[in-house]
């Protein structure tokens, strides 16, 4: 979930491009900016489908297919069915639209971003954006730590299931305590080992750090950025009244 599959990620985009797409999605799909302008509304649909296309290039067929199908289905329903519906059916569909049409594209983009960016690339991009070390170090530790936490949690979960401490089991009341406490005890221990290892590799020193990771804007970045940027242009054009 939180680790990048480098061999199969297909189209390589700069982390900053992905961030720009994410922000655009947040502004237009989730924020509903400029939805009074028809051109922007069409553009929003295009950019909402973009994460699905990106998932396709990363060969994540199942996720891409499912998200594309849900989006297309609900969006069609929004356009065709809503003017004719009333009452309870309207409430249900309205809530679905709220979650799937507005929120889902950015969630899919988040899933794509996590599964296609290596930690080194991410840190390199953060560095280029002049984010201070106080933020980048905890973030990189965190991304390194996710697989460990999940692995430990799976092991603890199995052990507790054997003792019948599960939802619906004999000791359901201890469900949370008996999972979180061991998880934290071992996470803290692993954490202090990790910090010793990182310090021997020079994390604490105050010199400028280097990174062998190559990031930069390529042709595909230009295309994606052009698509995202055109939405803002359409919005501004609509605001000053050039198009409707």
């Amino acid at each position: 979930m939180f680790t990048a599959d480098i061999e199969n990620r297909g189209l390589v985009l700069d982390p900053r491009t992905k961030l720009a797409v994410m922000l655009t999605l947040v502004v237009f799909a989730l924020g509903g900016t400029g939805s009074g302008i028809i051109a922007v509304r069409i553009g929003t649909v295009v950019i909402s489908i973009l994460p699905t296309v990106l998932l396709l290039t990363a060969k994540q067929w199942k996720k891409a297919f499912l998200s594309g199908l849900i989006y297309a289905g609900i969006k069609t329903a929004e356009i065709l069915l809503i003017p004719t519906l009333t009452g309870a059916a309207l409430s249900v569909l309205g809530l679905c639209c709220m979650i799937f049409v507005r929120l889902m594209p950015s969630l899919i983009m988040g899933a794509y971003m996590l599964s296609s960016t290596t930690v080194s690339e991410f840190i390199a991009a953060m560095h280029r954006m002049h984010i201070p070390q106080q933020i980048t170090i905890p973030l990189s530790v965190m991304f390194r730590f996710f697989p460990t936490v999940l692995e430990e949690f799976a092991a603890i979960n199995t052990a507790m299931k054997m003792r019948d401490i599960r939802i619906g089991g004999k000791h359901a009341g201890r469900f949370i305590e008996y999972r979180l406490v061991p998880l934290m005890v071992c996470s803290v221990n692993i954490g202090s080992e990790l910090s010793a290892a990182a310090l021997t590799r020079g994390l604490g020193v105050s010199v400028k750090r280097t990174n062998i990771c190559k990031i930069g804007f390529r042709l595909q970045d230009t295309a994606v950025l052009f698509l995202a940027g055109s939405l803002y242009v359409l919005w501004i054009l609509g605001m000053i009244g050039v198009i409707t």
Partner: protein
Amino acid sequence: MKGKDLIHIGVFSAIYFVILFAVAMLGMIPVFLPLLSVIVPILGGIPFMLFLTRVKKFGMIWIMSIIMGILMLLTGMSWPPLAVSVFSGLLAELVYKSGKYKSAAKAVVTNGVFSLWVAANYLPLFFAADKYWASRQNYGQDYIDTVTKLMPAWMCPVLFLAAFVCGVIGGLLGKKLLQKHFEKAGIA
């Protein structure tokens, strides 16, 4: 702040986010959506109280809060969580600092203040709602009324209040577990 402190922030942020992620999976069922700001502060209180025992320097709580906001942005929950977490994190930091980084009672309140950003996840659904539905007048007023009824504006402060209160409850729970388990194990 040294490298070691920064690593601690990373480790506890990871635990906090895994808990958040597990709870957010429940949130996929729409009925549970508002419950997120109830469950996350309570469960998150357990690792956060342990984290507070590690906090001895200014800025650690603030940085963790900002990181949570950045993570929300990266996972597609929009920018309001980040905007709120920058301020609530600083506020939480100041609350804990006023207890000289060791007051247990202040630590409980700190968890309450820290949890405020969880409620901010819903802000886009409130703020942008009018704008979004206003452009869909052709769907009929009936539709707009129905949808705004699902997310009434008064829910917004209620969610923030719920996050704070549950944060305090989570802090108390975390404190109890701290005494029960972690001090015995020698890691608190």
